[in-house]
């Protein structure tokens, strides 16, 4: 506790002490008038700064009346004013706890507890503060001091758990914000650290410790998460599948982006899809787009893109995506595309059917990578009058995390509904599936920064109105290489035994994604 703040904090209580005078209140109860008068004399001396004289009066009284609460209380307060926290806390430990503690009594005891913790006896300090907290459960200063001592003790996990209780507090003292931010960084929560520090800087813009903490968090995000990356980036994706009733289709997408302003990237992209079957060539796409991604801060990002069909001129489209990441563990996305692209079935495109697409999603990743949850709702508005609404959610759990192997299970639920009865593309009136996925990651100690192979095995029960329930299964193998900080490659191949309108179909899919930063 800083002296200035201590004084500021104590002044109202001093005033209260004088105005309300608990010593008076006690004395007026009668019966112990001599004792109260002596105590009162001591308090009066203490108020004048003559602490030792006051204590000389109170000590013998306390020896004679060891369980006299007002005497104990005033002795503790005056000892604290004098800076003798050992005496104050020793006496505090003796007090038989009353149902209430006077509000002016709590700060001097709390200050002594902090002082003791500063001396290295963290547990003793915490024990006193936790006791005080029972009398003032909503006290911000008490919570703050407990959090600080817990951090000094080296327990960031417990400190951050408790920090949740005061997250909305507006005081944001630099001496509090900086260690909490360090803890957040220690626990791989850089976005929250930067958000907290920036809030602190709004209140204390010239504080050098906060300024340093801000750069530290920003560096962490930049290095580990590529936040506000200044490098140019090329992304190339290629996929081939037979998911549209056995028709092989090729999808490729290339994107180039550059840092054009702080937290802003400009990008251009080209998308091409091709069908192996010439009769569906009308569904082929060649779309070029240009867009801007801007991060307002680490929590909010907007992506606005405009695109046009370079094959069939005039089919312009726009896509907007807003991403909100309030915590390092949570991510929410809302997106709208006036023209759905390769997520539209080939047969729909080949028949001139287009769609707009709304999407909302939420994702959770626990900090220890054990738990995962994802949920998304989608709404396609087709130009043939069909309206498709779908929901997908999955929850994952890592039941084994060994250095060379991680194993996870996922439970998935999917359901959709289409409003048009007959459509040239797969268009179930209502369907749903419950799936179980097993994923094994093989982590290799290769020459690269990271190399993981993943094997997915999926089994699900699929139910389509009018066609009953069928089992579906799939297997997928994937390799993911982070060669270094600038290059990564992911490729995979999958086989699925699917069911459409009651008929089983075997499908293959292969995909590749390459990212290069310059």
């Amino acid at each position: 506790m800083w002296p200035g703040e201590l004084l500021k904090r104590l002044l109202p209580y001093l005033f209260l002490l004088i105005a309300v005078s608990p010593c008076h209140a006690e004395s007026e109860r009668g019966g112990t008038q001599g004792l109260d008068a002596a105590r009162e004399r001591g308090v009066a001396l203490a108020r004048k700064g003559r602490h030792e004289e006051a204590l000389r009066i109170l000590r013998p009284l306390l020896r004679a009346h060891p369980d006299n609460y007002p005497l104990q209380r005033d002795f503790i307060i005056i000892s604290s004013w004098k800076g003798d926290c050992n005496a104050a806390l020793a006496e505090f430990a003796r007090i038989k706890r009353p149902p209430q503690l006077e509000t002016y009594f709590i700060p001097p005891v709390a200050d002594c507890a902090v002082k003791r913790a500063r001396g290295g006896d963290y547990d003793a300090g915490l024990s006193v503060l936790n006791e005080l907290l029972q009398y003032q459960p909503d006290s911000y200063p008490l919570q703050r001091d407990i959090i600080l001592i817990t951090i000094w003790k080296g327990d960031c996990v417990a400190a951050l758990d408790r920090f949740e209780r005061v997250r909305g507090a507006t005081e944001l003292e630099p001496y509090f914000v900086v260690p909490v931010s360090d803890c957040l960084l220690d626990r791989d929560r850089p976005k929250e650290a930067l958000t907290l520090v920036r809030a602190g800087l709004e209140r204390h813009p010239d504080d050098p410790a906060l300024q340093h903490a801000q750069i530290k968090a920003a560096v962490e995000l930049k290095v580990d998460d590529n936040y506000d990356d200044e490098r140019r980036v090329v992304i190339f994706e290629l996929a081939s599948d037979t998911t549209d009733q056995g028709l092989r289709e090729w999808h490729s997408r290339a994107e180039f982006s550059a840092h054009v302003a702080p937290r802003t990237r400009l990008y251009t992209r080209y998308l091409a899809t091709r069908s192996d079957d010439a009769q569906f060539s009308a569904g082929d796409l060649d779309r070029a787009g240009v867009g801007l991604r801007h991060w307002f801060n680490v929590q909010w990002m907007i992506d606005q893109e405009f695109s046009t069909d370079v094959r069939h001129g005039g089919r312009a489209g726009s896509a907007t995506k807003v991403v909100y990441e309030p915590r390092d563990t949570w991510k929410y996305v809302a997106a709208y595309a006036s023209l759905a692209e390769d997520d539209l079935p080939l047969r729909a495109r080949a028949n001139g059917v287009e769609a707009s697409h709304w999407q909302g999603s939420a994702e959770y990743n626990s900090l220890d990578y054990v738990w995962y949850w994802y949920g998304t709702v989608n709404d396609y508005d087709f130009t043939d009058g069909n309206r498709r609404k779908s929901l997908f959610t999955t929850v994952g759990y890592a039941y084994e995390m060994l250095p060379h192997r991680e194993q996870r299970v996922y439970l998935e639920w999917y359901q959709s509904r289409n409003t048009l009865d007959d459509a040239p593309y797969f268009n179930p009136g209502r369907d749903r599936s419950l799936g179980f996925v097993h994923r094994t990651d093989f982590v290799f100690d290769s020459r690269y920064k990271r190399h993981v192979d993943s094997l997915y095995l999926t089994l699900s029960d699929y139910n389509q109105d009018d066609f009953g329930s069928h089992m579906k299964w799939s297997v997928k193998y994937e390799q993911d290489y982070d060669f270094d900080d600038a290059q990564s490659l992911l490729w995979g191949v999958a086989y699925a035994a699917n069911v459409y309108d009651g008929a089983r179909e075997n499908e293959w899919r292969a995909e590749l994604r390459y990212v290069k930063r310059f």
Partner: protein
Amino acid sequence: MRLFGWAALLWLTAVGAVQAGDIPVLAYHDIAERHGADEFAVPPKEFRRHMQYLRDQGYAPISLQQLIRAGDGQGKLPDKPVLLSFDDGLASYEKAALPVLQEFGYPSVLSIVTAWVDGRATPDQYRGRLLNWDDLRRIKASPLVEIISHSDDLHHGIRSNLQGNLAPATVTREYREVGGRHESENEFRARIHADLARSRARMLAELGRTPLAIAWPFGDYDSVLAEEAASLGMRYYLTLDEKPTSLQTLPCINRSTFRKYRNLQDLDDILTFREARNRQLRFVEVTLDRFAGKSAAEQEQLLSALLARLELLRVNTVMVAPFSRDRRKAFFPNPRVPVAADVLNRVLHQMRARIRIERQYLMLPATPGSAPAREVYSELARLNRFDGVVFSGDVDDAGLEQLISVFRYHNPAVRIGVPLGSAAKSGVDFYVARFEAALRGEVIERQTVAALQASHPVYFILDRTEGEPDDDLLRAMRAIRSGGARYYGYSNDDFLANAPAVLRIVPELQAYVARGAGK
């Protein structure tokens, strides 16, 4: 010469692939939930998982006696041997670790600080948490446990400099305010001998046998300690150097410990030496000229600014010049070169203590002005703890050998670097190549590829000139990485003017280079 050869071998194995014969040695401390200030603690549940993991992965924990016998050629070690050790003599060893070790049938080594067991100098944080002599006598009865010394009372800090920093009592020549001088070598040796003799005597008296090894407190040791311990029968010593142990490194047994333990990956990193092998050094060169002629308060402000800067740069290595740029003045007390400011010890100490920079190298001229190098460097090595030295200028084998012996006497694990192309070869652990950051990228990349043909690892330093655009340095770093450099940094960092700009330089400075691209 043989010593230098071994040191070079050690370095290579530290960064090379796991070699047949490498023996991982784990150093545990408290086995307790990590809800305390002890960042070395491993939770009990995790400890059990460790033992299970060792079994699942086919590791065979060995005893210290087994290791020593194999070293003496009297036995063979099993495949995948591992040695388990526990420092400090904490009660959790008996309560949490030993039952699990016994269940698995694994031997272990327990090191004790005899003054703590006696209650003569127990630190506050260890009160009530240590084994006593009765406990130890009970534990000693187990054939699976070897109890060794962890010193009598050297497991604490003593004053190492004018400014009052505390450094390990094992290797620090104590700074005495009275007279303003450091402990002499004779005084130091006598103190060490007395301590180790007391530890041996107490263990003999209480446990009925003398220790055959010692685990150095904080892992730090020098030749004086090794000699004194050996003279008292403690021929084998356990360090915390992050290098593999093998039969050839005996009597030195290097260990790795857990710091801020997170998960099994940490254990596997130690067992496979992966972390050490994959570590890429990133550094800045720091000069201390700004500290000259400043008051103590101003020096503290400068030091704070320097530490804050290094923390933001996230470098894991710092190269410090202990002489002024013109080499006429020194930043450490010595008998020959005028002292500009006695700050080196404090700067090194604070870098290690406050921002955890574990690798500190000194940039040294082969000849410090007109003063005799041996005399000046002997004092430098005696009073300061650092991990390596980099000689500038051309050094021949004979001259280098003399200098290396000075530094290795005080720190046997110290690493030696010389300029690439230098005539000196023996005892060298790495080369240093310097490029001007303003050179064209293709030139830097080409020269990097050529430099990496050298017989030892190469550290690349990009010389940045004042006022040079940051883009030059960024481009140079990309080029040096394209060439395969895994150890690189730059000079002339202006920590007061944020030059180069932190947010621009750090991503390039910290970028990972695929292993195998270069040494």
